[in-house]
């Protein structure tokens, strides 16, 4: 299937505007663990974050893909989250302060949809890398 890349190349390499550091709390971990039906007591007590918690701080500490794609994504309601990958380096505990930085690594059109790939890395207050993420977004026709 042909992919159209040329007209989107100016967006590739754009840095996502960094958000505020995300302060991890036991309450946020508990709330998240409950919302995804975790059964491990350490997660439910907020002692350590479950792996999926990565979604929370990756989303909260990034300025937003839409902001980086200003002028390209016209209707955020047409955005579909189509893929996600995580790599884990260190566990997350209450008291951690996490900062994520992200970059658009690919933008192309295929099957009438616009595809945006973003890589993000989160570091803690000690400067240690705690996780890496790859986010794949599809914008449906009419949304770009």
């Amino acid at each position: 299937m042909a992919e159209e890349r040329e007209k989107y190349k100016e967006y590739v390499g754009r840095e996502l505007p960094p958000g505020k550091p995300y302060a991890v709390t036991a309450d946020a971990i508990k709330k998240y663990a409950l919302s995804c039906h975790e059964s491990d007591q350490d997660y439910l007590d907020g002692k350590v974050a479950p792996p999926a918690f990565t979604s929370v701080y990756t989303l909260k500490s990034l300025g937003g893909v839409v902001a980086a794609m200003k002028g390209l994504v016209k209707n955020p309601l047409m955005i579909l989250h189509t893929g996600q990958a995580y790599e884990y380096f260190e566990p997350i505990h209450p008291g951690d302060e996490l900062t994520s930085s992200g970059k658009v690594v690919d933008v192309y059109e295929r099957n009438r949809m616009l595809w945006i790939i973003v890589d993000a890395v989160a570091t803690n207050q000690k400067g240690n890398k705690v996780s890496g993420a790859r986010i794949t977004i599809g914008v449906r026709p009419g949304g770009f």
Partner: protein
Amino acid sequence: MVKWDAVKEGDSVTPMVKDPIKRDEIIAYGNAGGDTNPIHMNEKAAEGAGLGGVIAHGLYNMALVCHMMTNWIGKDGKLKRIDVQFRGMVRPGDRVTSTGKITKKYVKDGEKCVDIDIVQEAKTPVASGTILQFEKVDAATTEAMTRQWLKGGDNLLFEVTKECSTEIEKDGKKLKRKAMDYKIWRVQSSILGSATAVLS
């Protein structure tokens, strides 16, 4: 908790079945996860976006997979990597089953690793009811019944939810007959992906 020495390639991860997803659970996940996009939170907005109603967050479905993985790995191991594609939309009422299979077992940098292929299926209820039980319900019968009721449905699952009895009228008399409650689900992959786990 699973031990690296005890597993082999081809083994399955203990599956995780999530009871039919409720709208409230999607909203709770949106609030806890910080993604309150109206397509997940608001029926009208989701319909307006052409989705035919609210859909669960892909990240919620992924969290169910992570839950399966960490339950299986146990506290002495760890999830090292997970990579998923969101293949189908999951809606309130869907029953979601996460599964995994070991594709590779190896040692890297002193860590005992396994690579896992992940499949998550969402079953959407499309029909239910009670029918008289005329014959033994075997696989061929249910397949024929499913084909008869829902033409062209390649990915349909017929499930007997309860054996029961019902009354019928024949020649003015009420007769008790064996029956069964059934449900027909449309089955689709909601997630395909892979993961790497370090086991103890």
